[in-house]
């Protein structure tokens, strides 16, 4: 049964003399290539041009800071547990006195590494995070010459204070709805949460 209407019955036979001249077939082929002169080039000249990403695109990760600029990550390790590719490793440390403006919680990630060669960009880390700390963004992970360079540490993952990364695309209504049972006290913003946290002590 024919799957398309373009299938053609072919036979093995000697070419006729006029076919052995090849000229009609050549002319037909040349007209096809000629028509391609007038066709649009689909090339996107990356990195000069960057193709528009789909709204759900999952690219390079970012470790968010809160509004006051303190790192949100508390090194709970849920992202590392959720990661199917086992790409995330971390080491926690205790916050010292005077570091309150640097880290939001008493515990923070001293080392936080994502191996970009292992990562499959599934977004499960983002889903698992109770602190709204890790997000996948629409940035493309840059290429490198060595494997070592592809293990991104905090220097590449934590967003700089003066160049915040917009993750509002990842916080769509459906996502927030999905995460609403994780809306705990410590998940509120820095200013909201701080007085209440101190009140507990």
């Amino acid at each position, binding site marked *: 049964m024919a799957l398309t209407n373009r299938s053609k019955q072919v036979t093995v036979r000697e070419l006729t003399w006029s076919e052995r001249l090849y000229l009609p077939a050549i002319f037909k*082929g040349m007209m096809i290539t000629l028509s391609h002169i007038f066709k*649009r080039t689909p090339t996107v000249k990356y990195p000069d041009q960057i193709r528009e990403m789909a709204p759900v695109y999952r690219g390079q990760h970012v470790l968010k800071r809160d509004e006051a600029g303190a790192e949100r990550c508390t090194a709970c390790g849920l992202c590392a547990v959720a990661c199917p590719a086992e790409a995330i490793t971390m080491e926690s440390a205790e916050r010292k006195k005077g570091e309150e403006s640097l880290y939001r919680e008493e515990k923070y990630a001293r080392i936080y590494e994502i191996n970009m060669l292992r990562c499959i960009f599934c977004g499960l880390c983002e889903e698992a995070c109770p602190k709204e700390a890790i997000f996948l963004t629409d940035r493309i992970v840059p290429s490198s010459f060595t494997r070592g360079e592809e293990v991104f540490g905090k220097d590449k993952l934590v967003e700089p204070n003066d160049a915040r990364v917009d993750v509002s695309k990842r916080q769509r209504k459906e996502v927030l709805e999905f995460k609403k049972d994780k809306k705990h006290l410590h998940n509120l913003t820095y200013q909201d949460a701080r007085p209440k946290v101190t009140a507990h002590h």
Partner: protein
Amino acid sequence: MDSMLIYKALLTVGVFAVSLGIAAYLTWGERKLAAILQDRVGPDRAGPFGLLQPLADGVKMLMKEEMIPSKANKWLFIFGPSFFMLTACMTGAVIPWGSGITVDGVVYPLQVTDINIGLLYLLGVVSIGVYGIMIGGWSSNNKYSLLGALRASSQMISYEVAMGMALIALTMITGTLSLGEISRQQDAGLANVVYQPLGFLIFIICAFAETNRAPFDLPESESELVGGYHTEYSSMKLGFFLFAEYINMFISSAVMATLYFGGYNFPFQHELGLEGNTLAILQTAALFIKIAIFIFVFMWVRWTLPRFRYDQLMNLGWKVLLPLSIANIFITGIVMWALGKLN
């Protein structure tokens, strides 16, 4: 005639330089056109539209490590590409690039030399061109190179027969072998392609085969013979082989324009009211436009057609083109006899 001698020397250098410059930009044009035909962008990094790409390629070729296989015949190995390049450049000497520039009553012809056996010279130089490929491929001491060289020589010999036969029919009409004279005849009458359409068709097919261009690029056939005759070549010696192919393409386009499409003449050139040097410059421009169209066809065919199988190539040469060209000679003779043009 001292000034004429100096002028001829300058013209020789000029033709040489123009051939080389055009060949350099043909490498760029080929890649750009290939890209356009395949819906790609092509070279666009070096300079605007990638126009400095030939320069970058040239520097790359010169800077690459030069390798000569230890079992190769060193002198012949070097001689091969040099000879191929030399013969490619030699053919430009007999082509009339224009009618002639008049300065102080002296006519300076835009043709290095208008020998009365110009056509024969052209065929001769083109045929010895295959020695460059053959010597290069043979001296490499590599089976792929040898196979490529064998293919090149047998292909060239096969297609030269049909090419020569096509030209015999042409010379029956023109009555001369001088390319300058053939150009002037086409100024007075119609372009030769009107009288020799079949001859032109045979000639252009043979020209593809002679320049080793697709679909007749069996000597190179990178997919089966690695690189054919230039498998062992590197650096600028490889560059010479590749570069000479583009010079050959340029020259054969010029030959086709001269022999069959009126040379430097263009339609209604005497009705424009122009004369002297202005007309001569326009004529040269017209010739180069014709050449550009032929080169476009060369490239267009290359990026359309797959390579012939070897038996198909030989069948086409000996069983189709040769009988056709002989028939063409007979038809030309009969028509000339019927019109009473035989003397």
